[in-house]
């Protein structure tokens, strides 16, 4: 419970981690010191007042998940206020509020209730549907939306862990989608799994290489990755627009629209639960990516280098890690993960041909997903699924209640904002603040503009 801030750093206790990695032979005394420190920390947490029930209660309400629930409640309340204020019937009935207040309250209740039940029906379970398959369809839609969010979120999160801010998700997804799509509709004669595999690999490679440009420039010239990835977004967008608008390149033959022909059957990610559901194998790929990133970060030496560079590039260099090389490999891997999201879009979700908006804003949503998930693979999975649900439910809400889908953006961003500031949420709900302990680690340096070059 040392850090509730879902920051670019993982939520693990840094002390535990340091203990695991400390080598008693190399640094005598260090392990003892760390253990004493940890004991002190535990003692801080366990200062009980004697009343067992009150202690239990206090531990529960000062825990992290209460803050999360509180944050969601607050965000949903704020969304409700927006719905009520802009609802036409509420405005009409507010005109005679003092004559018959119940009218306005009922209208407000209807508006909010209708909106959130539509959101639930669109994201989780449609209890108005006739068959079970139709009722459960929204859930599969949520998971379909979640797949690219998780993959791209992992790409952003991985870069965060290495102290890099990858705002280039849009460009990486576009390049990946272009490569995968080009193989997907342009190559003929390959049988099903081979064709799909080829397109998949091409897309992931393209995403990785596009992000690799940013890594390479950062490593070789010190160019800031924030600038480079933003600029590469635009370059990719116009490059793809050009390819899409030029006959003979990506544009569908005989069409004037900037759109590609549909993907060939042999390159499409097959449906996971049968043809009646939108869910495709891309979701499984995202799950595999989550496991892979977890392994990479926590069990591999490459991942250790990533984290070491993220924590302190100078110390990493002293420890013998080639920082420029690590920067390039981080961006390659991060771009490949974001590329996977692009591949899932063209080969799974939109198989009828794509245009230059195929990224669907996922590259930017991925930043919020990575932040909400605390830059930790499992957290990213949870956050991506939540956002996928919001996306599915938001469109259902727009269709059923006429409430613009943008309200979902507001609720999402408020959730992240509140979760990031536990003291604020506790203050609003009048929950006890956890005992303040002295800070052992220096505050997290922001990853955006402070990561100096590897000078």
């Amino acid at each position, binding site marked *: 419970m040392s850090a509730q801030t879902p920051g670019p750093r993982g939520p693990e206790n840094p002390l535990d981690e340091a203990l695991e990695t400390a080598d008693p032979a190399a640094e005598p005394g260090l392990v003892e010191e760390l253990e004493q420190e940890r004991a002190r920390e535990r003692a801080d947490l366990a200062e009980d007042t004697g009343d067992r029930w009150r202690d239990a209660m206090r531990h529960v309400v000062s825990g992290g998940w209460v803050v999360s629930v509180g944050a969601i409640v607050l965000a949903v309340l704020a969304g409700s206020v927006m719905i009520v204020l802009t609802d036409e019937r509420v405005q009409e009935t507010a005109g005679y509020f003092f004559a018959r207040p119940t009218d306005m309250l009922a209208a407000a209740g209807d508006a909010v209730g209708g909106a959130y039940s539509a959101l639930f029906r669109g994201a989780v379970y449609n209890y108005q549907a006739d068959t079970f398959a139709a009722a459960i369809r929204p859930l599969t839609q949520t998971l379909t939306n979640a797949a690219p969010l998780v993959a791209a979120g992992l790409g952003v999160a991985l870069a965060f862990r290495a102290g890099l801010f990858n705002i280039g998700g849009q460009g990486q997804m576009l390049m990946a989608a272009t490569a995968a799509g080009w193989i997907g509709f342009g190559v003929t004669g390959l049988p099903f799994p081979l064709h799909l595999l080829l397109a998949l690999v091409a897309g992931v490679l393209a995403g990785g290489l596009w992000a690799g440009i940013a890594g390479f420039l950062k490593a070789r010239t010190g160019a800031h990755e924030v600038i480079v990835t933003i*600029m590469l977004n635009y370059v990719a967008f116009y490059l793809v627009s050009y390819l899409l608008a030029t006959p003979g390149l990506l544009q569908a033959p005989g069409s004037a629209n900037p759109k590609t022909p549909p993907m060939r059957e042999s390159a499409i990610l097959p449906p996971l639960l049968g043809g009646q559901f939108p869910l495709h194998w891309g979701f499984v790929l995202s799950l595999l990516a989550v496991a892979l990133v977890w392994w990479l970060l926590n069990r591999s030496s490459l991942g250790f280098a990533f984290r070491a560079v993220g924590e302190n590039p100078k110390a990493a260099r002293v420890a013998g890690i080639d920082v420029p090389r690590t920067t390039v490999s981080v961006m390659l891997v991060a771009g490949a993960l974001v590329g996977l999201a692009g591949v899932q879009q063209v080969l799974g979700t939109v198989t009828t041909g794509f245009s230059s908006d195929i990224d669907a804003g996922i590259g930017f949503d991925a930043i919020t997903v990575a932040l909400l998930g605390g830059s930790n693979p499992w957290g990213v999975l949870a956050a991506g699924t939540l956002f996928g649900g919001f996306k599915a439910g938001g469109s259902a809400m727009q269709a059923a209640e006429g409430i613009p889908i*943008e309200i979902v953006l507001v609720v999402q961003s408020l959730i992240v904002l509140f979760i990031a500031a536990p003291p604020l949420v506790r203050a609003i709900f009048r929950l006890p603040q956890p005992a303040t302990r002295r800070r052992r680690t220096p505050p997290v340096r922001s990853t955006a*503009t402070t990561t100096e070059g590897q000078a």
Partner: protein
Amino acid sequence: MTATTVDGAPVSAAAGPRAVRTVTWKTVTVLAVVLALYALLLLLAPHEGAARFRLSTDRDLFVLPTLELPALTTAWVCAAVALAVVGLAVARTRGGRRVPVWATALYAAALLVGFLAWAAAGSPRDLSVVGLLSGAVVLCVPIVYGALGGVIGERAGVVNIAIEGQLLAGAFTAAVVGSLTDSPWAGLLAAVLASTLVALVLGMFAITYKVNQVIVGVVLNVLVIGLTSFLYSQVLVPGAETLNSTTRFARIPVPFLERIPLVGPVLFNQTIVVYLMFVMVAVVWFALYRTRWGLRVRAVGEHPKAADTVGIDVVRTRYRAVLTAGAVAGLGGAFYTVVSINQFNREMTAGAGFIALAAVIFGKWDPVRAALAGLLFGFATNLQNVLSVVGSPVPSQFMLMLPYVVTLLAVAGLVGRSRAPAADGVPYTKE
């Protein structure tokens, strides 16, 4: 020979003072690569005919003649000038000295003129140099204001990713208030207030609650995009007549000065918001480097503990800086709805805030350099507009890409490592 030898190998080189190279070849590399690409363009797509540059407008005191240049000759002469600069750069770098700024500027100007001559060759229309420059000044306005805001905030140690959100909030409120009151001044003021409000939220979370500043910034952008888009479709679209049609600022020509050829129409026939931008760059520079407030802001951004030790209230200084930064960015937001066009559209800032962020870093956290970076960006964007009027042979998508490619090359080749204020992004905890 007094130098000792170990295993027969002379170590005299190690005995002397070690030479430390501070000059790299990357500038030369970028200059050479760009020149090679330019030459390739001329070789592969030669463009016969004459290019005509119109330098005057009808209102000028005296009329400068329309320049008529033979396109290919001009383009190759410019290439030769650029080649000379590359040669100079090689010589300087080999001698361990930096490439002087004037040489880089000469190189850029040569390639620009050459490219314009090539692109405008044989076009029935004249290429209006005045239009090119004045458009650039107008297009850079929101970027420059946003970048100035970014510089102030980051100099105080608060990273501001939320410039985009501040611009958008400013544009939205300026549209609503400007339409309701029918006064662009009210709109401008409202934009400043709205953007300051976004800055207040940023400050509250980043300074008081010590939340990671990147998180707050990113999330605030999403929040403002969501709020303004939601309100746009729920409120502004139904009530477009009363809520979303502003009166714009009129141009205010400066008497006499505006009639100077070339300079006049570009600099002295603009709206008040543009004049204010020039003033603001100077004011921010003066405030940061020549006033007590600026010294404190920079101290708090570089070493808050030291600043605290000498009695500067770190939290209050940072709050003031962030709020000031928000107010400045708000002026840029108002530009969209009370200067550029007369209504608000969904996500109308279209990433200008991120470009401003890039300009902050590109300009190495200095107000004047950041403003110049913004101007460069506006110029490259307008170059595309102007060339599409003249009928350039380059596909429009590549012209649209130009500003971003130029920025990439400039960042990679000329600027290099940019060092943020030391405490940028670090919340301050008093001990």
